[in-house]
């Protein structure tokens, strides 16, 4: 197990290094000078020295490889640079936004579990019933529905038509818990339904596979109650592959958060990253990519370890 963990850590670090290098190079390979472009949006600048001054201030006048190593050293020292758009320290911006996005992730995961797992189990136990067909359709709908469309429909229905929930915005939980819960209900639901559909499908097929196994038949043959068969004998082995999808969906949530945070006006990491991409705000784009990569890698690592723990066969694969 120890060897397995060390191997996974090395793989994760290699992937992270690759992500950092690729992001850094790709952002700089894009055509155009972000400093000049952004300044010209404000005024006609006849004084080229001002542009050069700003470029030097952000270290963009140095060779790319120097910029890279400087950034890398600073990054690991905890200095993620200064935003080109706001002039604020990127680290401070992240600290402010990470808890917001984490709250959405946790909320979305709860929705995904609450909706996806029971739906999947019910469908598996009532295979080919009309409810199974309905839940399967709902799951597929959940997977395929675009996030922005779902968001806008919910906003107009609950906030404009029924007027029971606020349309958008964010207030920290410790500032106003009730308002916070009201505000995150819709965005977490939208993010959650995206994962719930896939989760339900996965749980259903995993359960069906396990329910067809010999030991389940044996358990039923020896007269165990159906509840005991399902929860004591089928649930654990059926949930092993589900762990993977839960972990992967956590990584995928960041993609959903980019759109959800934009639609519901939530000041999280996703929206900051999206704004930075459009503004070509190098330091934020780079930091976001590293944080996103780390998020996915850590979750994959946890999944791998959990999987290895739950299923000894995985540990033996060299």
């Amino acid at each position: 197990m120890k060897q397995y963990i060390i191997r996974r850590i090395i793989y994760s670090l290699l992937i992270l290094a690759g992500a950092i290098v690729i992001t850094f190079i790709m952002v700089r390979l894009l055509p155009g000078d972000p400093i000049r472009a952004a300044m010209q949006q404000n005024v006609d600048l006849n004084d080229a020295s001002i542009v050069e001054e700003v470029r030097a201030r952000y270290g963009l006048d140095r060779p790319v490889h120097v910029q890279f190593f400087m950034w890398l050293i600073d990054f690991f020292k905890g200095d993620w640079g200064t935003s080109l758009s706001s002039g604020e320290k990127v680290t401070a911006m992240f600290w402010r936004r990470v808890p917001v996005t984490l709250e959405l992730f946790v909320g979305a995961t709860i929705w995904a579990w609450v909706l996806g797992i029971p739906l999947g189990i019910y469908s598996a136990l009532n295979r080919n019933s009309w409810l199974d067909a309905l839940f399967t359709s709902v799951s597929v709908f959940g997977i395929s529905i675009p996030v922005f469309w779902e968001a806008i429909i919910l906003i107009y229905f609950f906030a404009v038509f029924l007027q029971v929930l606020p349309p958008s915005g964010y207030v920290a939980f410790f500032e106003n818990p009730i308002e916070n819960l009201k505000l995150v209900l819709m965005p977490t639901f939208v993010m959650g339904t995206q994962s719930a559909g896939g989760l339900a499908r996965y749980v259903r097929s995993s359960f069906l596979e396990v329910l067809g196994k010999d030991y389940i038949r044996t358990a039923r043959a020896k007269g165990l109650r159906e509840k005991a068969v399902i929860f004591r004998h089928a649930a654990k082995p059926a949930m092993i592959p589900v762990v993977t999808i839960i972990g992967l969906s956590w990584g995928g949530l960041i993609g959903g958060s980019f759109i959800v945070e934009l639609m519901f006006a939530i000041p999280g990491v996703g929206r900051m990253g999206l704004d930075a991409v459009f503004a070509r705000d190098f330091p934020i784009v780079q930091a976001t990519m590293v944080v996103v990569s780390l998020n996915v890698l850590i979750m994959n690592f946890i999944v791998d370890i959990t999987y290895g723990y739950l299923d000894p066969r995985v540990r033996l694969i060299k």
Partner: protein
Amino acid sequence: MIFPKRVSIGAVLLTIILASTLFAAMNFFVHKALAQDEQSEWVWTQKNPKPSWWRWDEKYYPAKPVRGGIYRTAASRYIGLMNPNHWPVNDWVSMGNFYEKLILTDGNYRSTVPFLASYWEYKDPVTVIMKLRKGVKFTDGSAFNAEAIKFQIDWIRDKRNGAWSRAWLAPVKSIEVVDEYTVRWKFKKPWAGFLGIMSNVPGYVLSHQGLKNDVILRDLKKAQGQAKRLKRKLAKGGEKAKKKYEKAKADVDRLTPMAEGIVSLDAWGVGSGPWIIEEAKPGNRMKYKRNPNWWFGRSIGHPDMPYMDGVLVTVIPEPSVRLANLKAGKIEALHIDKSQYPLVKDDPNLNVWITPGNHVTSMVFNHAEGPCKDIRVRKAISHAIDRKAIIKGTQFGFGIEASCMYPAIHWTHNPNLKPVKYDPELSKKLLAEAGYAKGLTIRGVMGNDQSSVKLGQAIKSMLAQVGIEWKIRTVDPVSGSDANKNRDYDMAGGGWAWIYDPDLMATGLYHPDGGFNYGRSNNEKAIALIEAGRTETDLVKRQKIYWELEKILYENYEDAWLFWYVGIDANRKVVLGYNREMGMAGQEGYFATHPGWFKDGHN
């Protein structure tokens, strides 16, 4: 004996009544005088008479203002950079809440409305005397006076402060304090754009104390950096390095206690305006509370101004969600997308205002190389574009056909020019004359935003009708800027937003010095007129120069101007105090001086 021996009750009563009346009258005048404590008179002159919208009586609005309530609105973004002189500025809406300008513009975008500058006069083409308003204080308690203005202007002009607006003040030679409320400006050469610039970024007046604090923060940051660098070199550097390090270290020690507790103006704007920042959460929301000592309300005898208790600006990036907030009653006002007009026009809870703005959308030609060097080609393209159809198809009908660069409401627009007629047959004829009877292919660049893509497609299909194939590259703003710089196009999407002083746009697009020209346009007559416009300080003569400039550009088909912007705003009917006619006539001047209120004092 002068007192009577017997005094009647009537006489006593009469005396009491008279004394009380006198006391009440005195109280009233003293109160009035205190309310207007030492503020300068509003100076209106024959050349700059009092505008029709400068009133607050029942002719302005029939209902009486009521105090109270929080005005809620939405912004598409708020990044949290509150010093307008520090790039990049994206929070213009917020700036206007706490900073005020020296001079405001009127409904025709002329810099004519005295505000923090109460009066100004060109003593000669290179000297301006400017009187500043008395009795104004910044909300941090520091005084607004000639020293404050001189400090700010010198601060902008000092390279160490990294103000991107420094270029705007390039013609300034010096600014001197004449007395507590008077400054003298000296220019390197005659400068007509001065008033326009004072209505623009450098004209936003920032707290004197705030700027002084920023200088401390700047010096501390520099000293800390120096000390850190020099410390590393101490071992090898010898005595000289040691001395330098000690000096830097002493600077750090001296400045550190001074910097304690200071918040930069970049993060927390402080001005003299009607609102004071109460909470600032970049990317989320901004709360303002009422400035109870706002000088302007007192100066016109309305000390209750601003009437509302506060303002809440929430960041909502998505237009459809902003509209949902308005319809749900979560915000009071919104600048709405044109496509959303059908959703608000019949809403009984909303007032909807359609207003022309000062932006122009155009197609710019590369005159330096390629087929568009030929006026016949430019003319053919211009006549091949159906401007009415473009406004209908891409702007949902909201736009005004443009005849030239300055919008019709701008004081510099030549009213004798008519929009270029849609005439595809003439286009075909002109192309044949130019040697392109069998067709012409031109290169183009358009932005990748939805509106530019739509516009590009519409024009492409119109040009195809006359035998022109326009090969468009759709690019993001940063790449677009590069294409512009390298003149990598024959015809590209262009335009200008927020046209205040006319020289900025004229130079930017049509003068070799311009930041958007890059050698693409080199019209000698136009260049001469642009240079004349920069130095002519007489408003009437200057207007004639720009009329002539527009005529020259129009006749040379310098660019294809498409439409002038029309904006749509909606506000909930509970907000009162907007007089449409006066608002149109006064624009910036009106909005800065006529704050609204809630019907019943709450939202």
